[in-house]
């Protein structure tokens, strides 16, 4: 019998419905797996809570998700379970309330897994190396990063230490780790998923989204967490279609745009070949691909590192040692703030807060922040124009496969450029998915990114599912 932790959510739900197994069996299988492999992967943080909270399980709910456990990134508030953004400054923070997505999951009968997934501190990073708890290792090659910032969520799913997981994506933080770890990851349309209870990084870019073992699970989880929430003023009141109807395995006649700007120098040769083969596969399944231009692509990274850091500098002002988390000792209030933040934030957090504060400060606002907002308009207009002619756009998720731990930590600019293919999607607010589409000769996964019009996640599931069901990439498992 296959171990339960290796199955997809929809496979497990079938067995739960037939009463062949209980959710307790799944929970035990995950616990066993974590004890066996997490010392190598380090997908989870605060491991000591695993046994402590095991007995608090509620029993076999009747609702649709039937007690199926789900893993949550450490920046999504879970009542009674510590949520520290993998930062020293939030050490010990135990939320007194649930994020809206957690409420929705609980109402649907899901079991919130008591261990939280590792991440770059405050989601600042592309490798999960910026975690206060130390890096996560890629299950396919432990010397490599799992990507980031949702590296723990992606690695836990890839290593069968989780059935499925939630991450958050501000500039690629779900899709890039999904690509590096060989799993499916979705960044929903901005406004699709409530951000209430997601500890904010950049409020105009952040979205919560699923990481899963296949496209069906990804669509299932989206069905649960999508929808309007009055507690988030940027939540959009728009109907959520029945995504099971998108899993048609039929893409005949769909028009797919291939942006020339994404196939440039700096792209790994093996990745290029694998992506070209994937595009050929889509064509052979009846889609029609053609070149499209997104002329402002090269400005996406600089625009992002102004807007995201400016918003972060404002959002992270709340971490001052007064209401929660770490407080440094001092008799003077201003000095207490400065010491608390100096000691509590890691290097990347300091770098981004200072860069963002600079971009918003007197004398620099027009030259940096305002200009970045204008170029953001141009990037959005590129996509508006492209989607007049195309149903979706297909690109690599990342220019390279997973890189080595330590390879880019000394050069922040090099690290920022690893998000070059994912960032535009957040700036334009559109949805995009990453799915496994091949392996390098060294056995590292490569991800295919599919983008669609705002609120057309159904298109992403349709194309992704059709590709997946006609390939076997998603069935490979890392050897641990």
């Amino acid at each position, binding site marked *: 019998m296959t171990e339960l932790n290796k199955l997809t959510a929809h496979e497990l739900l079938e067995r739960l419905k037939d009463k062949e197994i209980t959710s307790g069996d799944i929970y035990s299988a995950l616990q066993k797996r974590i004890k066996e492999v997490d010392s190598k992967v380090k997908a989870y943080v605060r491991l000591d809570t695993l046994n402590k909270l095991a007995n608090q399980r509620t029993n076999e709910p009747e609702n649709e998700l039937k007690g199926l456990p789900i893993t949550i990134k450490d920046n999504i508030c879970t009542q009674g379970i510590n949520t520290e953004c993998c930062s020293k400054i939030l050490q010990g*923070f*135990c939320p*007194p*309330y649930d994020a809206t997505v957690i409420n929705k999951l609980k109402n649907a009968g899901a079991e919130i897994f008591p261990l939280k997934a590792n991440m770059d501190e405050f989601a600042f990073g592309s490798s999960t190396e910026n975690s206060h708890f130390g890096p996560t290792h890629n299950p396919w090659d432990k010397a490599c990063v799992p990507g980031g910032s949702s590296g723990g969520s992606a690695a836990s799913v890839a290593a069968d230490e989780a059935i499925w997981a939630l991450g958050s994506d501000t500039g690629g933080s779900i899709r890039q780790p999904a690509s590096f770890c060989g799993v499916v990851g979705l960044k929903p349309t*901005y*406004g699709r998923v409530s951000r209430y209870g997601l500890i904010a990084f950049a409020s*105009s870019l952040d979205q919560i989204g699923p990481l899963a073992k296949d496209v069906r699970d990804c669509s299932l989880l989206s069905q649960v967490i999508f929808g309007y929430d009055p507690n988030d*003023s*940027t939540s*959009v009141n728009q109907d959520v279609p029945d995504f099971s109807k998108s899993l048609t395995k039929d893409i005949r006649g769909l028009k797919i745009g291939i942006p020339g700007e994404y196939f440039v120098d700096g792209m790994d040769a093996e990745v290029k070949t694998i992506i070209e083969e994937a595009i050929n596969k889509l064509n052979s399944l009846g889609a029609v691909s053609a070149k499209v231009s997104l002329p402002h692509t*090269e*400005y996406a990274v*600089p625009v992002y*590192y*102004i807007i995201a850091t400016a918003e972060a*500098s404002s959002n992270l*002002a709340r971490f*001052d040692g*007064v*209401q*929660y988390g770490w*407080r440094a000792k*001092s*008799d*003077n*209030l201003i000095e*207490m*703030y*400065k*010491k608390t*933040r*100096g*000691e509590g*934030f890691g*290097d990347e957090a*300091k*770098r981004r*807060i*200072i*860069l963002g*504060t*600079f971009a918003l*400060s007197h004398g620099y606002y027009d*030259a*940096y922040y*305002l*200009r*970045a*907002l*204008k*170029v*953001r*308009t*141009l990037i*959005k207009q590129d996509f508006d124009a492209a989607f007049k002619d195309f149903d979706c756009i297909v690109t690599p998720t990342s220019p390279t496969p997973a890189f080595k731990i330590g390879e880019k930590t000394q050069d*922040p*600019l090099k690290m*920022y450029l690893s998000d070059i293919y994912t960032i535009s999607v957040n700036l*334009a*607010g559109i949805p995009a998915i990453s799915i496994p589409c091949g392996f390098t000769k060294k056995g590292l996964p490569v991800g295919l990114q599919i983008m669609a019009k705002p609120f057309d996640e159904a298109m992403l599931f349709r194309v992704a599912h059709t590709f997946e069901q006609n390939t076997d990439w998603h069935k490979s498992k890392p050897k641990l």
Partner: protein
Amino acid sequence: MAIDKETVKYVAHLARIELQPDELEKLSGQLHDILGFIDKLSSLDTGQVNPSSHILPLSNVLREDKPADSLSPDKALENAPAKKGNFFSVPRILE
């Protein structure tokens, strides 16, 4: 645009972050490189472009003015590093 050590020191003060001397040194160099890269944006003509602070056609989202449950003082203070009665406690600010 160049950014020097004095500017970084001043901005860190605005951001209420205490930097150690070695951090200041390292950060100044890194921010200089990052801003050099970002300066790419100045080559674009944005005179006629409207800024997008976000991409949704929403503005002034209001809710009904109806009372609802909120966190009790006990709950709200649960995570406080220091408290006195129903208040967060901080170092004295008046001499």
